[in-house]
Structure formats: structure tokens, C-alpha cells
């Protein structure tokens, strides 16, 4: 399998941070870990965008993953990190498998709005379930790894390590998918679905498959977010949360599998800085960035990287 250079840089960066993690300030580690979790969700959105679809409800699977982790922890006392991650991925993936039968038939704005409806249905259910803390949610704590319970500071490094591991696996897997015939089909379907079907490809089954992959990625991302922030609430599946993921996807662009993570890191940075300087206008900062990116860099920040590459080649 041929690896993109950007992929190697991305993995190098993540592992480098992991090695440096004991000496880094904790808030930086927190931001990067959360960016990794967001990046996993956005990686799924990037696949949709290659298909020409935009989902306004991807937070559904993000939240499903987070609640799977939280509920296993709270109700069944399962606390092992790997088990929780795996379970969240499976639950979210299964949910995506079921919804996929329906959603794979929809295109353009209807795909986005129907997925929005499903995420809002989950929101309605969670808000009304008082056992799960209703709108306040509940805390996730007491996590272990292979029977070992790390202290708070160690835990942050362990969680970061697990995030790096998940991100690397996801990067390699999605890279493999995109290089495969099925992955090359994505762009063909976006450009002209009917022609792609005349060539013998099934748009529906491709979209369904991508929907499941994106669901699993988002579920794992949600589980990590739940573990890192230690708290989950129904707002994770509110439409504004899906909106943030779409924003990150636009910010990063769809040029490479690393782009969603670059987008997520920059989103984390913008959010932290904007929130730190003026908490009442951070949304405005995000909005202005979004307009600037759409108007000036329609292919996302990744197009800058590609431009630089072309220049260095000349």
C-alpha cells in the first residue's frame, strides 16, 4: 500500500506529541485529544463530501458512541477503555447500518435534512430520559485499561495515546478505502450518478457502506470525547453540534485523509483563542472563518498545502 507523504507527516506529528506528552501542558494535550475525536467524525464527513453529500446529522453517531460508553460505564460497570471504544464503534456502526437502508436513497439537501431529523429524534429521546440525567447528562469516570486504573495525569496521557492509536488506524483504513476501486467510485458518483451506474456500479450500496464507515468513526470519536471530557449530555446530538463538524470538514477540505485532522486542530485552536478573548463572540469568529474559507478557499485549507507542493515541484 502506497502511503501519502502527508499521511506520514500527520502520523509523525501525532506520535511526536505522544512522546512529548509528559512535558506538555495538560490543556494542550486536552485540545489535541479532542481534536482527534472531532477529526474522526469529520473523516466520515469527508467521505460523504467526496460523494457530494453533506450530512447535518452526523452528531447522531457521535452522541450514540458517547452514550454507549457512558451507559456501559454507568449501568453495567464496564470500565475498560478498549472494550468501551470497541462497543461504541459497533453500536454506532450498527445504527448506521440500519439507518443506511433508508438514507442511501436520498441525495443533496434531502440527505442532509433527513439525517438532521434523525439526530434531533435522538436529542428528543435523550432529553426526556430522566435516568440518563435529561438535559444535564451525566459524568463518565472510573475508567481502567487492562485492569489498571491510572491517576488523573496519567489518564490524560493514556487517553491521548488511545486517541493517537485510533486516529492512525482510521487514517490507514480510510486511505486504503479511498485507493480501492470502491473509493475511486465516490468521485464518480458525485460527478454523475447515472453514468456511474451504467458502468455497473451501485451508488446505493456504496453510499450505504460509506454511511456505516462514517458511523463507526463517529461512534469511536464520540467515545473518546466522552472519556476525555468526562461528561456527556444531549447537546452532543443537537444540530449545532453537527454544524460544527460540517464547519471543520469545510475548513480542512477533502483533498486528503489528513485534512480533517488539520481542520480539527485549527478549529480547536480558533475555539480556544476566541473563547478565551471574548466568550460572547466566539460563534461570530467561527462564522467569519467559515465565510472566508468558502469564499476564498473553496477546497479548504488543504488546497494551500497542494499549492505549495505544486510550487516546490516547479
Amino acid at each position, binding site marked *: 500500500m502506497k502511503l501519502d507523504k502527508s499521511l506520514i507527516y500527520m502520523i509523525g506529528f501525532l506520535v511526536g506529541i505522544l512522546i512529548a506528552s509528559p512535558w506538555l501542558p495538560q490543556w494542550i494535550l486536552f485540545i489535541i485529544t479532542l481534536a482527534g475525536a472531532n477529526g474522526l467524525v469529520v473523516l466520515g464527513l469527508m467521505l460523504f463530501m467526496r460523494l457530494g453529500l453533506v450530512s447535518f446529522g452526523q452528531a447522531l453517531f457521535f452522541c450514540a458512541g458517547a452514550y454507549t460508553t457512558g451507559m456501559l460505564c454507568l449501568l453495567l460497570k464496564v470500565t475498560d477503555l478498549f472494550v468501551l471504544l470497541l462497543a461504541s464503534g459497533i453500536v454506532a456502526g450498527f445504527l448506521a447500518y440500519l439507518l443506511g437502508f433508508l438514507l442511501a436513497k436520498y441525495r443533496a439537501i434531502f440527505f442532509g435534512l433527513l439525517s438532521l431529523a434523525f439526530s434531533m*429524534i435522538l436529542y428528543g429521546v435523550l432529553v426526556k430520559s430522566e435516568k440518563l440525567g435529561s438535559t444535564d447528562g451525566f459524568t463518565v469516570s472510573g475508567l481502567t485499561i487492562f485492569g489498571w486504573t491510572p491517576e488523573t495525569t496519567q489518564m490524560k496521557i493514556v487517553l491521548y495515546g488511545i486517541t493517537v492509536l485510533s486516529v492512525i488506524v482510521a487514517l490507514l483504513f480510510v486511505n486504503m478505502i479511498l485507493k480501492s476501486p470502491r473509493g475511486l467510485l465516490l468521485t464518480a458518483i458525485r460527478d454523475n450518478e447515472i453514468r456511474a451506474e451504467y458502468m455497473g456500479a451501485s451508488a446505493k450500496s456504496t453510499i450505504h457502506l460509506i454511511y456505516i464507515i462514517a458511523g463507526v468513526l463517529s461512534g469511536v470519536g464520540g467515545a473518546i470525547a466522552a472519556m476525555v471530557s468526562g461528561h456527556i449530555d444531549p447537546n452532543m446530538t443537537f444540530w449545532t453540534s453537527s454544524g460544527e463538524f460540517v464547519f471543520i470538514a469545510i475548513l480542512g477540505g477533502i483533498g486528503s485523509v489528513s485534512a480533517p485532522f488539520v481542520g480539527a486542530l485549527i478549529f480547536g485552536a480558533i475555539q480556544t483563542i476566541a473563547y478565551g478573548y471574548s466568550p*460572547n463572540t466566539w*460563534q461570530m469568529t467561527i462564522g467569519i472563518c*467559515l*465565510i472566508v474559507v468558502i469564499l476564498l478557499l473553496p477546497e479548504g485549507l488543504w488546497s494551500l498545502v497542494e499549492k505549495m507542493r505544486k510550487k516546490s515541484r516547479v
Partner: protein
Amino acid sequence: MSNLLIVLIDGINYAAWLFISAVGLTLIYGVMRVLNVAHASFYAFGCYVAVTLAGYWFSHNYPPHLSFFALFGASFVAGFAIGWILERFLLRYQYAKDEVVILLITYAVFLILDDVLKLIWGVDPYYASDPYELLGTFNVGDMTYPNYYLLMIGSAIVLSLGLTYMLKKTRSGKLLVSVIHDREISSAMGINVGRFFSLTFSFGCALAAIAGGITTPTISVVPGLGVDVIVLSFAVVVTGGLGSLPGTALAAIIMGVVRSFCVHYVPQLELFVIFSVMALVLVFRPRGLFSLAEARKI
């Protein structure tokens, strides 16, 4: 029997509110193929303008019954003006882009305007219940209802009839219908499509602001109140068939009544019943209740 009546009255009132809130969205989409997320901000803007003006009006002892015209008028004017600015200086240059990209641009505008509202009015809640109390109540059986219900339902009926009349009977309405059907041919026939777009967008935004203005006396005006409204409006217009006026009305009535049944009998379902109706309708009618067939791209 009387229970059923109560449910129906609540349902119709909610349906009227849904219709008023959503009609601007469907109008803009129908003409311009722009799904305007910033609708939420215009709704909130209408609320703030109305609540501020109501405070001023009633503290200065102006004739109280005229306050309605002032409230709705001010919301309308504010919504129209900001909508016009938005269309003229930002959206006008984006129409060549994909539907979803334009949606994202309006999402960005929503994020920006939401914070502008916080900068202007702060984060404290505002109330203006004077117009609400002013109208008094009416009785159905032993239940007492505020007359404001009637105002809401009346406004919805006036709006739907007025818009239908404008589209079907007036000269500019007929021209607008031709723009909806084919903007290139309309343009070739000498219709100023650009002007129709900017008027429609401003008018749709003004309708959102009016919806906010009408709702204001019944709620407390707090930051972020548009966020809930916009998803409900999305649900209504998509269920009705994007861009269809009768579809929006029918979807609003179905959702209003179904929600009212849930609130009275199974309150646990209240929050997600509207989206369940939407999902259910889209399963059987993928483009909504009243949708036009569209040509496939080969």
C-alpha cells in the same frame, strides 16, 4: 369529546405558530433554491426588536391597542432591511454555487448574527407580556384560552391567503411564478430576476422577523431562541415539500395536531414527535408532501 376539542385547539394554535415561523423559509427556497439557516437569526431579531419597542411603547402610555401594529411593523421593517443588506452584499454573488454551499454560507451568517444580537441586547432575558394580557381571554366549555390564540391563528390565515393572492392574482406574483419555474427563460423574457431575488429574500426574512414579533408576547426573549425554531421550521417546510405554500400549511397543521396529542397523552414524546413525523413522511414521499417532479440529470 371536550378533551378532543382542547387538544385540537392547542394543536391548531401550535400549527399557526409553526406556519408563521416557517413560511418565510419556504418562500425563499421556492424562489431561490436557498435554504436559509439565518432564518433563525431573523426570527430572533424580530423578537428583540418587538420586545424593545413594546417596553418603550407601554412605558410611554401610547394607545395600547395600536402596539400590535407597531410591534409587527417594526419587526417587519428590521427583518426586511437586514435581509436586503445580506442579499445585496453577500448572497447575490453566490448563486452559481451548489445549494448545500449556499446553505453553509447562511449558516455562517446565522453564527455571526446570533452573536451580534448578544452584543446589542446582552444575554439577559426580556419580557413583554402586555400585548398578551391586553387581549383578554375566551372560554370553550370550562377551559379558558387567551385571545392571543385567535390573533395567532388569524395571522396565519391572513398570511397564507395573502401570499396565495399575491402569487396567483397580482402581476408581480405571476412574474415571480415564472421565475420559480425557469429563471433563465424569465430573464430572457425581460424579467429582472435579480430584483425578484433580492425582494423575495428580504421579504422572506421580514416574514421570519414578523414571526418573532408575533411570538414575543408569549415567551421570554433570551439568546439562542432562534436555534430551536429553525430546526422546527426546517421540519415543517421539508415535510410539506420545499417551496410549496399549501404543503407548508398542511405540514404545520399535521405536526401541530400530532404534537398536541402527544403533549396531552404521552408527554415523553413531545420533543421528537415532530421530527418523527418528518422522517415518516420522507420515507414515503422522499421530497415531501407537495413536491414537484424533477428532471434527472444525465
